[in-house]
């Protein structure tokens, strides 16, 4: 498994220095909310705010800087336009030094007030902090029969508070309490009907009375409407669908057919006071089905063949919905349910049953969630199965929605999908400067090139190196800016395939990725006043055809420009490699890295960095650059950061394998003797390698191979495969790979060739 996060975090940290330390930072905010159509005063605490920061609003409205600001404090009178939809938004401060990281605010029509001892009138959104073991308390006047909602937004807006709320009545008896709920992403909501007239007390504290920082909260108190789920949560492209917005009550909405796939924020209903995360649906290219209202036969509702998604609801405790799907014998059926991850209260079990209803396989949880993922190998004589979606814990009810994804995979068939991720949330670009943004492709079967583009770029900003090559991990997207003035913007990056499939580039591990996914693709582009030409790094005498040879070292010569030659320069390698992992930890042995830390001494205009190329590299090509940090004389401050132009380097492997007549080889299976197949192959040695190669076959244990070692003077080989008589006929996927020692002086360093995939097609004997 590849985990790009650590590397991206490192790059994020590096990128953060690119606009020098003057990039603004928000430490705190007095209110984590804004009232639509009203003016709310937001007071920011932070660093490097300058005296003229701007508030980068993600919606229509006004943000007026109030007088009296300092470099550590800034106040804005913010008025969202009256038609701004309620929801969560990200606010950023922009200065000449760049853009801050975002803070999340809740936007609705509730009055926004600091948390205090008393609330004069409801509803209201109260903003406060519950740190450590502290218990925050407020009171309000209630009436008998009055319905009340007390909802805390904390985890959802970036706080680490695990909120617990207690409502205490006029007689000091507790009316109710609520705790961090998975369905609210760790936040809490208490709903009560007040039993008597009088003064009520509401307290908030951390679940373990040890709130980590930051521990701010936004307590909404009173009555309003919200949406917890949308049913169905997925619709097919072009399909008109009536959606249910499910909250305390259910509202229906007709969604016209959508042309583009992706996440679609929904309009709020016209009537009512709405608050909370904005609802959305996923428009997919997949066939989408709704669970039938009429009772299905015991074998289940009939579904079409192929990739299909079903939106259903387990309306009663312990209910099981069943779906009958046609399957190809010998194929694999990949099943997944989305329920807990979309805020449903369900704990779902997936059950594969035969036509008589007997269970064949069951799935419960998957990593990080109680939603099940199940891969079922369809037996050779089975043409249909019934898939059960069962409420395992009796939490079925009106809110018990789920989405079942059924993905049949025939032998040899591969899915073609990918995700694009980055760790960069803000880009500060100096005048005439260059920034690199690693965009990594998490490939799920899709191996072709991906072209990147951006929406809402500031004027004069251009993208280069926009193509992720076929099979590559990613690209170092190069962003350059001319010298013309430009305004900061909130942009988004996307990647498109040659067939037109488009995916938005998402910020990895973004806190709102599941709640309002479109916010996870917001990237702030902020021009800075720094002159890029003052500090520069470029390649020295680096060969145009420089490449990455496994286990070899690659020397990268550089030349530097800086106004003050007395400054040292620190060099860091930046690549488009997805950081390989071993047991979920970064694996340096498989990572492109510098041999040692490089710092170019003052007055040196040139230098070099040596890259260690690991023995295994999965991608055919990687982008490389060097980041130069120009240090102050005391080396405590980074004066500027610059990047060498990106070099895309091919991986040149020392050994290539080919099989004659492949990649499919047919054989007839004798019912007594089995089958023996002989395949001829060739081995090509390159990059000066001349040694022995040992080949190995990977595949079903029953298939054995006789492969003699290939000596240094040989390049042809013969592969003899033996298949036992009891092997089922059909296609057998196999892999051939070789290992060798590229440098006899380092006998312990072995290199593995790329896997050579081929298929043995077994047919039954005519006898």
């Amino acid at each position, binding site marked *: 498994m590849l985990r790009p996060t650590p590397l991206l975090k490192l790059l994020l940290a590096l990128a953060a220095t690119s606009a020098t330390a003057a990039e603004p930072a928000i430490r705190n905010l007095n209110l984590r909310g804004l009232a639509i159509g009203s003016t709310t005063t937001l007071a920011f605490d932070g660093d490097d705010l300058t005296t003229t920061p701007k508030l980068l609003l993600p919606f229509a409205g006004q943000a007026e800087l109030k007088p009296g600001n300092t470099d550590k404090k800034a106040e804005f009178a913010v008025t969202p336009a009256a038609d701004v939809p309620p929801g969560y938004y990200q606010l950023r401060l922009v200065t000449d030094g760049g853009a801050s990281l975002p803070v999340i605010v809740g936007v609705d029509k509730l009055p926004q007030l600091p948390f205090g001892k008393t609330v004069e009138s409801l509803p209201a959104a109260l903003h406060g902090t519950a740190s*450590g*073991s502290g218990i925050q308390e407020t009171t309000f006047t209630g009436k008998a029969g009055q319905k009340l909602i007390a909802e805390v937004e904390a985890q959802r807006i970036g706080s680490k508070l*695990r909120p*617990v709320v*207690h409502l*205490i009545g006029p*007689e*000091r*008896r*507790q*009316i*109710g*309490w609520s*705790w*961090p*709920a*998975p369905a609210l992403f760790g936040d809490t909501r208490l709903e009560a009907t007040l039993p008597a007239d009088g003064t009520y007390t509401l307290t908030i504290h951390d*679940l*373990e*009375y*040890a709130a980590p920082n930051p521990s701010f909260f936004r307590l909404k108190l009173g009555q309003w409407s919200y949406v917890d789920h949308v049913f169905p949560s997925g619709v097919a492209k072009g399909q008109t669908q009536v959606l249910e917005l499910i909250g305390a009550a259910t509202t229906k909405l007709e969604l016209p057919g959508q042309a583009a796939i992706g996440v679609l924020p929904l309009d709020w209903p016209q009537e009512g006071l709405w608050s909370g995360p904005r609802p959305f649906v996923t428009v997919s290219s997949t066939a989408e089905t709704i669970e039938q209202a009429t009772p299905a036969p015991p074998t289940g509702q009939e579904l079409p063949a192929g990739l299909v998604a079903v939106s259903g609801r387990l309306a009663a405790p*312990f209910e099981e919905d069943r779906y009958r799907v046609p399957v190809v014998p010998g194929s694999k059926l990949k099943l997944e349910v989305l329920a*807990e991850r979309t805020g449903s*209260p369900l*704990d779902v079990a997936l059950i594969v049953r035969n036509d008589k209803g007997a269970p064949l396989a069951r799935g*419960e*949880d*998957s*990593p*990080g*969630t*109680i939603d099940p993922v199940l891969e079922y190998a369809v037996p050779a004589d089975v043409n249909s199965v019934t898939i059960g979606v069962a409420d*395992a*814990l*009796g*939490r079925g009810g009106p809110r018990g929605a789920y989405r079942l994804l059924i993905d049949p995979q025939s032998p040899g068939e591969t899915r073609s999908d990918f995700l694009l991720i980055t760790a960069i949330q803000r880009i500060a670009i100096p005048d005439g400067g260059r920034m690199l943004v690693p965009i990594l492709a998490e490939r799920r079967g899709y191996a072709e090139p991906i072209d990147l583009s951006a929406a809402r770029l500031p004027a004069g900003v251009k993208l280069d190196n926009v193509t992720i090559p076929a099979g590559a991990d990613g690209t170092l997207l190069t962003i350059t800016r001319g010298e013309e003035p430009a305004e900061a913007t909130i942009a988004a990056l996307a990647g498109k395939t040659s067939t037109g499939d488009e995916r938005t580039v998402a910020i990895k591990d973004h806190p709102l990725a599941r709640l309002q996914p479109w916010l996870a693709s917001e990237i702030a582009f902020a021009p800075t006043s720094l002159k890029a030409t003052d500090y520069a790094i470029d390649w020295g005498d680096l060969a145009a055809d420089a490449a990455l040879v496994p286990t070899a070292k690659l020397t990268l010569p550089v030349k530097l420009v800086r106004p003050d030659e007395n400054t040292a320069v620190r060099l860091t390698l930046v690549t488009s490699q997805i950081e390989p992992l071993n047991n979920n930890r970064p694996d340096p042995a498989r990572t492109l890295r510098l041999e040692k830390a490089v710092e170019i001494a003052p007055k040196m205009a040139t230098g070099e960095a040596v890259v260690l190329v690991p023995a295994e590299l999965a991608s055919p090509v990687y982008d490389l650059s060097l980041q130069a940090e120009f240090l102050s004389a005391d080396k405590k401050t980074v004066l500027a950061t610059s990047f060498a132009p990106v070099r895309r380097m091919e991986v040149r492997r020392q050994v290539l394998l080919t099989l004659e007549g492949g990649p499919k080889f047919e054989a007839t299976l004798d019912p007594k003797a089995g089958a023996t197949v002989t395949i001829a192959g060739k081995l090509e040695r390159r990059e000066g390698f001349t040694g022995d190669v040992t080949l190995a076959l990977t595949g079903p244990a029953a298939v054995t191979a006789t492969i003699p070692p290939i000596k240094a003077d040989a390049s042809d080989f013969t592969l003899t495969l033996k298949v036992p008589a009891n092997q089922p006929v059909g296609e057998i996927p196999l892999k051939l790979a070789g290992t060798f020692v590229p440098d006899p002086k380092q006998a312990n360093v072995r290199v593995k060739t790329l896997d050579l995939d081929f298929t043995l097609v077994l047919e039954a004997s005519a006898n």
Partner: protein
Amino acid sequence: MRHFLSLLIVACLATSAVAADPPLAGPIMVHPAAVKLTHHRQPQSLQVLATTAEGYSLDLRPQAKFASAAEKIAAVDSTGWVRPVASGQTEVTVTVLGQTLKVPVTVSLPAAELAHSFRHEVMPALSKAGCNMGACHGYSLGKNGFRLSLRGADPEQDYLFITKEFFGRRVNLEKPEASLLVAKPRGDVPHEGGIRFKKGSLVDGILTDWVRGSAAGDLADQNRVVAVRLVPETLVLHPNEPHQLQCLAEYSDGTVRDVTRLTVFTANNEQFARVDDEGLVQAGDAGETAIVARFERTFAATSVLVLRPNPSFVAAPLPQHIIDRPVVAKLNRLKIVASPPADDEEFLRRVYLDLIGVQPKPDEVRAFLASTDAAKREQTIDALLARPELVDHWSLKWGDLLQNSRNSVSSQGMYLFREFIRGAVAANMPLDEFARRILTAKGGGSDDPASAYFAISKDTNDTVERSTQVFCGIRMLCARCHTHPLENWTQADYYGVASFFSQVSTRADTRFPGVQNAKLVQLNLAAGPAINPRTSRGQQPKFLGGEAPALAAETDRREAYALWLTAKENPLFAKSLVNRLWSYFFHRGIIEPVDDIRSTNPPINPELLAALTKDFAEHGFDARRLMRQIVTSETYQRASTPTESNESDEQNFSHAIPRRVPAEALLDSLVQATGVPESFGGAPAGFRAAQLPDGNVTSSFLNLFGKPQRMEACECERDNSSNMLQALHFINGASILGRVQNANGRAAQLVKQKLSDEELIAELYLWSLARRPSPKELEVSLEFLKSYGDARTDAVQDMLWALLNSKDFLLVR
């Protein structure tokens, strides 16, 4: 019918106006009032009973004369045993104290004498002889190669072992009296277990005659003992006075059999009464105990009260209060004069410690003492019931009982369960709802905080034992492996309850990767019942001591159990909770130990427990209401100083018995008294001892004073005893010395206030003991202060230290 006949005899006697000495409170009763004999070998004893005007039980059988009107139908001996002779009807005349009573006798014998029954004669005989007790052949591995089921739990197995094992060498059909089955326990051949019965005894006769009759097995006989009764059910005796008991077994076919001679009798406390093999009770010292009878595997008990005559005793008038009435009634029966009410200071400190777990502060003491309102105690109680410390104090008790601990669940799960408990206490959630919420919880802690209850259980058996102990006050552990030795519970009972919980298991909660003990309580509705290891078969769900309900397939069986458990008419739930709550305010439960309720451990005041139980159930299992009833009672508010009359009584709530303050309340009171807070490792900053989340905190003080680690669902895990280490800690420990000498502590603050000596002493007493000094104490204290001269700070510190080391601080009086 039997009742009607008794009434008839009583009515007859009432007209005979015979003088008796001592004076009787009512008529002489013969029990049973009518005799029906249907078996050649099953005679019936007659009890001749009366009650004196002073309330003592009288056993008149030794002085009664018995005569049968037709010896050819039924014979009666001088001890009152009526034996069948031939079918027909007759009557037995009982003459005693100048009165004559007639007992109709009906004999309906089968044509021929029935063969000896293995199930109904041999098995009870083996139990009577002790052959199948745990120390002998009832041990799970048997003894010396001979194994019997414990206390006759498995007659089928026993029959096989006796008659078939080792080629049937234990029975000698040719020469029955030479059978090892009788020869060994009779001592004819060496027997490691010694002589168990004599030749010619009843047991010898049964066993020998059974072998003589071909050692047949009547294993198909479905007739079973359903209940055992002792007559009389209560005894009030003079010291050293004897009284015979009669044991009657009721069978599933409706017949009743006098099984006195085959019953095993034991006394719970032989200081107060002993009992012999024949059921003859011999009273001992003045006091109270119970005689327990076991026939086959069924128990019954008779309470025995031994009283010295007290002619000068004047019974107290019976109050109306639900608690005081049965308590005073009992004290009247015991001829005990209760202590007077506690004074205001004693009451106030006691009720504070008992209700909210901390002493009153000086201002609270002064205000209470100054008040002249007649209802000030009730007002104070109501105010305490609304205090937030009440939530801390009672949530701690429930947290202990429910074993909420980070040892078993994740930190988050533990805090969620703690919050659930606190919420329930704060809302005064009815305890039936509280129990139902817990016993039907499922999911992870973040889905349902009460689910931690099941996450804490090691397995289904653990759940059975915890649930029955906490919510029924019954210890079922023994019945997991064998029939309960002191109660009627069998493995079928145990696994019948287990089957309600056998659908529950836990799995890792994958939503919290890397979090230790993050568990999710899951249900497998298709799971079968628990397996009874005795039968190796699934045991169908059966309520504890109740029916086996018909449950729909694939439903959560816990729902049915929780509803049954918390039903108003359930004999276990309300009683156990009332008893448990009661024990928190007194030095013991009405049944003690509180979580060992069984027929062989009867309540000390059944009327009190019954009245409170009924009231508790009828008023919605309202814990605060029950607490209020208790603390507003005269019984609770009595002084701890005993009277001459009640100084030896520690069971009947005639005066308050001083108890050591529990660990958390002691530490919180110490912190309050000294003004120096405690910080606990492993707990949130600022938490008081009563607020601590579980036992996983660093506090040598709490460990020393018996704070439980929540490893058991037993009240006994909390150690409220006193020991030398505690005393040494108070004398030299940092908890006391450090606080007393703290520069910002109470002593230092009081010195700074420039108070007069009298005021200073009063403040020290109020902060430490929550009372004012007595005149004598004031005098001594003034001398003490003067003796320090100018070293006033030292004097105040030393005096505070001395007060904190006094019994008045360590004990709830």
